[in-house]
């Protein structure tokens, strides 16, 4: 006889399935923990070391502020120019990577390939590659940011293109427009909000990224940060970190404002 009195949230089968999944996660965690061979003595001294770091950092070196103004400006330039280049290059990639605008099967696969290739290599690795090619400096950083952002921007713009209303494009074509005109008057107005949204969002991400590409010599505030850390100039490090915090929060506010405006 079935027991109608007690309430069970799951059937026995579901419960066993969940236990097995949890077991898998636990085993994966245990194996990973083993593999890391963490030296626990370091963990013991960590709070001490961390407090030591803080006491050495505080107070921030205010006099250093003047010196980081121009690297900070360079950082923002890298982010803006990198994003602008990325958006310019991602428009054709998005057009061939969207199912409804791609000319043929081959170009579609090519578009998808460019998108995933750009996305799977981290910005710092791109920066390493461009530093070899163009030498250290902001140019390498800008290109690294641009190449890395193409995948992200194209993917989102391609999704926006796939969601457009085909009626508007047909209407433009019915007036006798060729395909370029149809793209300008039929597709562009429909994806413009997405385009602006994606660029500002990516710019926000790129501001963060451009603060660290200096670690490998690709310009921006990261160069100063790396130098200060190597010289153990912790008060300067704190000044730089505070400056980074300010521009990151600023870019987030600007990006959120612009995205709300175009929505």
């Amino acid at each position, binding site marked *: 006889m079935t027991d109608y009195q007690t309430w069970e949230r799951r059937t026995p089968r579901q419960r066993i399935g969940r236990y097995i999944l949890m077991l898998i996660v636990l085993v994966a965690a245990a194996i990973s923990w083993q*593999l*890391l061979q963490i030296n626990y003595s370091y963990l013991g001294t960590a709070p001490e070391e961390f407090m030591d770091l803080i006491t050495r950092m505080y107070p921030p070196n205010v006099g250093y502020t003047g010196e980081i103004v121009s690297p900070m400006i360079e950082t923002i330039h890298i982010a803006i120019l990198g994003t602008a280049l990325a958006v310019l290059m991602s428009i054709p990639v998005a057009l061939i990577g969207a199912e409804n605008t791609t000319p043929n099967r081959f170009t579609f696969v090519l578009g998808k390939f460019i998108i995933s290739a750009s996305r799977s*290599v981290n910005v710092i690795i791109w920066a390493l590659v461009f530093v070899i090619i163009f*030498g250290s400096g902001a140019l390498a950083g800008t290109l690294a940011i641009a190449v890395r952002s193409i995948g992200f921007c194209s993917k989102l713009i391609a999704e926006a293109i796939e969601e457009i209303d085909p009626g508007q494009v047909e209407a433009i074509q019915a007036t006798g427009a060729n395909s370029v005109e149809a793209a300008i008057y039929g597709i562009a107005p429909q994806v413009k909000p997405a385009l602006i949204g994606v660029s500002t969002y990516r710019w926000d991400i790129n501001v963060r990224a451009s603060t660290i590409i200096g670690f490998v010599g690709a310009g921006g505030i990261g160069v100063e940060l790396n130098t200060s850390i190597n010289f153990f100039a912790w008060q300067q490090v704190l000044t730089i970190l505070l400056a980074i915090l300010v521009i990151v929060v600023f870019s987030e506010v600007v990006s959120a404002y612009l995205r709300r405006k175009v929505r």
Partner: protein
Amino acid sequence: MATEQPEQRTWRRPTAFYNHYVKWAVYVVITVFLLWSAWNMRISVARVIEGWGAAIGLIQGMVPPEFTPFKMDLLIEGLIESLAMSVIATIVGVLLSIPVAFMSAENIAPRPVYWVGRGIITVSRSFHELIIAIIAVKAVGIGALAGVIALSYKTVGFFAKLLAEEIEDIDSGQMEATEATGANRVQTMLFGVVPQVMPRIIGLTIYRWDINIRHSTIVGIVGAGGIGATLLNSFDQYDYDFFLTIIIAIIAIVMVGELISTYIRGRIQ
């Protein structure tokens, strides 16, 4: 009745700006700014030509990628460490971020708690992994532990932010129903809120794991464990063959991670 012929009118595209002059002014300002920005970088034709030569040299140095047994051992060791770091960092990060997410959900947390939660999220999100990794390396020494700390720290901001948004969107009816049966606050959370956000928790965990795999491959550049250290070494020694091998391996592992993550998230939703 004869229809009146409308006057010949010209059509202009509507604009989001105040008027068309403002629109063009904005475009001009943006273009000038970008050009000035580019000029600041000191990009010259000579430099691009020089770069072209270097690029060809680099590609010649990279091809073919190197697969000698000694290098493969190094590679596999680094990759396993990266993967292990990503797993541990995801678990630790998610466990830490669930309470933070509940704190930062506007509909269930009291005002002061809400602001504390939001503050934690903002601080966690503002610095890049590598900066956190450097500080962690200083605090706990070179090695995987620093990487795990950096990745877990970044996980909190990401996971808590998205989960908090999900909690804000829940159906409050279920919470009230649980409360009406006499449940206390903890029970309301467990039976009224958690079941509604559980699919999202799992989906986000997998998604964040995918992101952590990517980042675990680079935190080694500042000494925080994983394949990144090997990558930077090969780069510093001009060992471009091995450099390419590592990059290919990273791309492969990132893509596999992404496929698994997409598959599982597709199954859950």
